[in-house]
């Protein structure tokens, strides 16, 4: 007992041997991880690296920019703004009254094709100043109701467009209620230009979000009529205009797909558009545009992308050049100790 207990003997030093086994267990185990000695690569930004990195970026970016710009230039686009033109002269100062009246809304427009347009030609309507991304608007829908017939009465999120005469509305909500209802008919040389309205929505939407057994009910039969009506005998999964509309746009100016013209158009073709100007954008001074556009591999006309790539690529090239010049003119030998702080401020030694 006496020998196994540590004691402070002469010199104030305890006996070290007795407790040795316990102590050894406290010894940290060696591993490269715990000692922070893991192998690591420690890249440093040497001039060569800096210049090559900038060069690499410009070498990659400039071709991409050029290609994108070319792709964008290939796209032919016809834009026709019609919301003012389609109001009869007498109503120019009171467009809202006009649009809310029972007057005929038909309107004829002529579009001239400037360049050859290869099929498919996409038909878009573009609205302006229309806040489809407003929080009140975005939330006003019922996804479960759209998908399944069984939850047709799930309209809690749809206020104020949830019930009509105490009957749940299908599809409910402000989005569906305000469905765009201008229609376009195209003819070329007095021949009807067919507009294919199939396949304008996302396939996943048709298959999984809008039910095949869900039919419009009580839609637009309230006192206040919003936008388009729906054919109650066609299931929602086939109501593609609705499906496209229900994908809320990100910005207050947006284009939505109306249909496709599966026919090439030649330069100087005159396309007659007979349109029903039903949709009210006059209350909030919104523009309405009809857009016919081809696409490239990039999508629609998008010069910005190419220009941005060229800009960044050019900037990098410039940076690479200036760094090269700087390194040549005023080189700093790498690892030059004279740059160490204690060598730079004299007086220390």
């Amino acid at each position, binding site marked *: 007992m006496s020998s196994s207990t540590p004691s402070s003997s002469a010199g*104030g030093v305890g006996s070290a041997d007795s407790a040795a086994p316990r102590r050894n267990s406290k010894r940290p185990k060696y591993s490269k991880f715990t000692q922070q000695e893991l192998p690591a690569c420690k890249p440093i930004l040497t001039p060569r690296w800096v210049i090559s990195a900038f060069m690499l970026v410009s070498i990659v970016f400039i071709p991409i920019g050029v290609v994108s710009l070319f792709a964008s230039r290939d796209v032919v686009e016809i834009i026709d703004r019609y919301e003012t033109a389609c109001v009869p002269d007498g109503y120019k100062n009171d467009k809202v009254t006009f649009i809310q009246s029972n007057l005929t809304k038909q309107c004829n427009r002529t579009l001239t094709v400037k360049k050859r347009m290869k099929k498919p030609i996409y038909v878009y309507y573009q609205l302006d100043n229309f806040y489809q991304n407003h929080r009140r608007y975005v939330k006003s829908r019922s996804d479960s109701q759209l998908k399944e017939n069984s939850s047709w009465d799930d309209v809690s999120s749809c206020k104020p467009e949830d019930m009509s005469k105490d009957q749940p509305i299908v599809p409910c909500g402000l989005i569906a209620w305000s469905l765009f209802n201008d229609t376009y008919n195209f003819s070329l040389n007095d021949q009807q230009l067919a507009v294919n309205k199939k396949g304008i929505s*996302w396939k996943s939407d048709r298959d999984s979000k809008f039910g095949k057994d869900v039919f419009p009910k009580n839609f637009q039969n309230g006192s206040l009529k919003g936008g388009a009506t729906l054919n109650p005998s066609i299931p929602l999964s086939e109501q593609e205009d609705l499906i496209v509309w229900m994908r809320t746009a990100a910005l207050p100016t947006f*284009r939505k797909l109306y249909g496709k013209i599966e026919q090439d158009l030649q330069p100087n073709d005159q396309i007659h558009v007979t349109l029903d100007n039903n949709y009210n954008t006059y209350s909030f001074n919104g523009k309405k545009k009809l857009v016919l556009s081809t696409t490239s591999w990039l999508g629609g006309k998008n010069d910005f992308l190419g220009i941005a790539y060229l800009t960044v690529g050019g900037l990098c090239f410039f940076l690479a050049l200036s760094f090269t010049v700087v390194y040549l003119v005023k080189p700093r030998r790498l690892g030059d100790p004279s740059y160490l702080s204690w060598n730079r401020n004299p007086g220390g030694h």
Partner: protein
Amino acid sequence: MARGRIRAKLRKSHLYSFCLFRSSGSGGQSIGGPGFSRTVYCNEPQVLNQKPYRSNIISTTKYNFFSFLPKALYEQFHRVANLYFLGCAIASLTPLSPFSPVSMIAPLAFVVGLSMAKEGLEDWRRFMQDREVNSRKVHVHNEEGGFGKKTWEDVRVGDVVKVEKDQFFPADLLLLSSNYEDGICYVETMNLDGETNLKAKKALEATLGLDEDDNFNNFKGIIKCEDPNPSLYTFVGNLEYEGKVYAIDPTQILLRDSKLRNTEFVYGVVIFTGHDSKVMQNSTRSPSKRSRVEKKMDYIIYVLFSVLLVISLISSFGFAVEIKYSMPVWWFMRPQDADEYYSPKKPVISGLSHMVTALMLYGYLIPISLYVSIEVVKVLQATFINQDIQMYDEDTGIPAQARTSNLNEELGQVDTILSDKTGTLTCNQMDFLKCSIAGIPYGVSPSEVELAAAQQMANDQEDQGELKTLVASKKEKAHKSPIKGFNFEDNRLMNGNWLKEPTAARIMLFCQILAVCHTAIPELNEETGNYTYEAESPDEGSFLVAARELGFEFFQRTQSSVFVREKYTASGKPIEREYKILNVLEFTSKRKRMTVIVRDEEGQILLLCKGADSIIFDRLSKDGKLYLEDTTRHLNDYGEAGLRTLALAYRKLEESEYTAWNNEFQKAKTSIGADRDAMLENAADMMERDLFLVGATAVEDKLQKGVPQCIDKLAQAGLKLWVLTGDKMETAINIGFACSLLRQGMKQICITESGSEDKQEVKEDILKQITNGLEMIKQENDPHAAFALIIDGKTLAYALEDDMKLKFLGLAVECASVICCRVSPKQKALVTRLVKQGTGKTTLAIGDGANDVGMIQEADIGVGISGVEGMQAVMASDFSVSQFRFLERLLVVHGHWCYKRIAQMICYFFYKNIAFGLTLFYFEAFTGFSGQSVYDDWYMLLFNVVLTSLPVMSLGVFEQDVSSEVCLEFPAVYQQGPRNLFFDWYRILGWMGNGLLCSLIIFFINIIILYDQAFRAEGQTADLAVLGTTMFTCIVWSLNCQIALTMSHFTWIQHVTIGGSIAAWYIFLLIYGALSPRISGDAYQILVEALAPAPIYWQTTLLATIACTLPYMAHIAYQRCFEPEDHHIIQEIKYYRKDVEDQHMWTRERSKARQKTKIGFTARVDAKIRLHKSH
């Protein structure tokens, strides 16, 4: 067992003649009054009318099972940021929320849950520790009349307990009796005050008879005493026993957490249990400290809060305007059916309620995960500190320990170190090194100081490259002599050669004094057959070892005698001599001497005395001054060599003279009253006169291993070192020299008290000294001149007064080293506070004893030495190391790393949250300020948790700008921390600006590209989900590439976390897109169907990523090119292996890297070299 035999039935009451058992005197009257109401019925804890005192269960936990949840939650929501998030979470349940409730509540629950789990785990550890203590066993007298084992928690007030050797006392006890007849027992109070020496306690005479188990069957008594209080050294109470009342004083009280030593067993009555016990009353929670970086972070949070408020206001205003003017015409929004929130009739209400929405929406500016990430990172950093094998002390087996993880980065910003001396710089081990006997000096082995001086002289001739040899030879020196406490070498005295010396008789007397004049107890080490000694002070231990080695082995102490075996005698045979102890006059700091009066075998009465030279010299007889001159000279030499000295003297007494004095002395001893002490002292004083000086001893206070080198490195790192010691000025200066804190040619400014009675006069004098010192420094032209400030405790008391302290501090910071001696624990704390508050810089206090606790708690960082002394300092500290020298690695390596890691991590955190949060704000402007978020709720949820958190954490845990070797080779790199180069406002605002730029680039690139045009060859245009997902992809890429640029150290962990974060985003999109549309909404199949086939999606990602990182890339390339920082250069040197190729340069730079250090042995060498060159 040998120990027990030696000491059995040893009567020592007259050995400890008067110093220990002083009656407290004051008790008695107040008992029963307020504050003195405790009544303990001994041996009948079950007495009914006994007041229910607290049980002996201790609990140091913060929470219990029921209180954990409410209390821990309260703690969590104490933080403003958390409170804000709680508000958001609650608001998210209302329709005002821009997000789904789960996306607000889940991160908060995660963050709070994690912090609470950490808290809970720590508390659980404390609980387990408490349980271990509570379930310790002790023998308690039971009703059946015997002693049975009980757990500590069951011990009640009034129980009679029997504590055996080397056990802790379970509660505060009244000592009744021990195995010694006179009721003495020895107690080690290391846990209470850090002192390792044993303290004797003595039972009341009346209870001495209760020393058998059976005697307690009929034992009854009533103790009336003071109420629980934290004073360790007082106790007032009395014991009613067998019809009489006896006063109890602190010498009968055995305190909980102290340990019974050298005593077989004791009996005691429990007085204070559990939290009533003095030690528990004393325990204070150490103040929670926060690092400078974290405090600054609060300001950044405030800045961000302001930004948040401003943009929320803008947004609310915008919303109100939109509601008022636009809403009525937005027929598709059905304004006529709108609820209050959207009603155009009440735009003010709409605006106000939108404020709530906006505050939630832009909450991403305030990184909710920052706190938890920092917490996790710091715990991991602390683990690395704990695991560092190079801070593990093989001798004691104790690794370094980060006891709190809050202050890791603070280690990298230390400016001033305040250090204790004993046990911190020195080992508290004394080596007998030299002596002077009869005017002849003995002892040839050099002290550390002499050695260092000699080495410097050698270095004078050569250049600086010789540092290595110096270090090497120092290391050699570190191999200790085989005998602890003895480093004496001199053939004239060793191996019995002293017999041949002409002064043999004096030498013998000298050794006799060493062997007899002490209060130590010998212990036979059965393995070696040698005796070791339990001594009150290490000095005394080293004397006994020295006497033993010189042939006077003290081997036995009985109640009245000391036995010494003389190995070398004229006859050649060892003889054992007995010295009858007649009186012991104890050593106290006031008396500064110790005397024993013994009768040797011839019947001659001798008075043997050792003490401080000045005291002894005053008491010499005329004849006794024979060697005075020589001895004084030797003492001066020893002092210069940094040794501790004592003078030895003796006197022969006549029988009659002694008897007369002894009568007087006994009378004084038995007298009762206030003047007893004075009488005793007078009596002692009468005897300790007309001494004959025999010689002097010189003992080396051994420096701890590596201390000079460590101080040197710390000085090179630009740190200031203040030594605060309780030792006297001479010793402190000695140690100052030994540590190279002082050197020749340094101008010492000693500030001392004039000794005048008038307080005002003293103050003025001190003020004058301080002003003179400042003047002197101002007038100094030599840039290499160094000053040292030395001040003692009494003077310090004046200097620390409010009207003078700033002036004092002004002087102190101008000096290269500051030594404060004779300072009390309180003053240590005050000095620490003065430096901390006066200079505004980070202070680190390091100490090992209970007297350092105040300083450790006061400093920004407290470091405890977990060594031989008690645990008090360690318990109060934030970090503990087992040796002072590990401080170098702790600061220069871990501190430097942690500082940079945390600083970079926080900067990046703000950057990423600004970059992300602002995109939400810009988008909102495009939604009529309605509070619609562009991202899916789940994206936002994952943003902080999965997609950007791990890389920044790997930065915080693993980043190394330079390797640990380089840190140690270039301590000057450490200065980046104290100068705060990585967390100044310039850098913080730079990062914020970068975040702003990044948010603008990402947002507008995405908006413009996906504005109205088809983004695919199939003609589809982008909707909200497509825009949000693309933008988010850009953010994930940009932020992760940005951090890759920030890092300079890539192990596989960084590769995995950065790559993994980006991959995780795509994996998440795939999984999320594959879930039922009911969950994923518009994000259903988004990657597979919509985005992945569109080249524009990938092009946008690439463009935004490069555009975002380009400014930063250009910035760091520029900076490295034109304004490289030290670590850049060193990285390059290492990268090109220049250090290997051009070793001369490497060595030169290393030596040049020193700051303008004026302390440390390198500075010392430099000073010497300068001196050499100038001649």
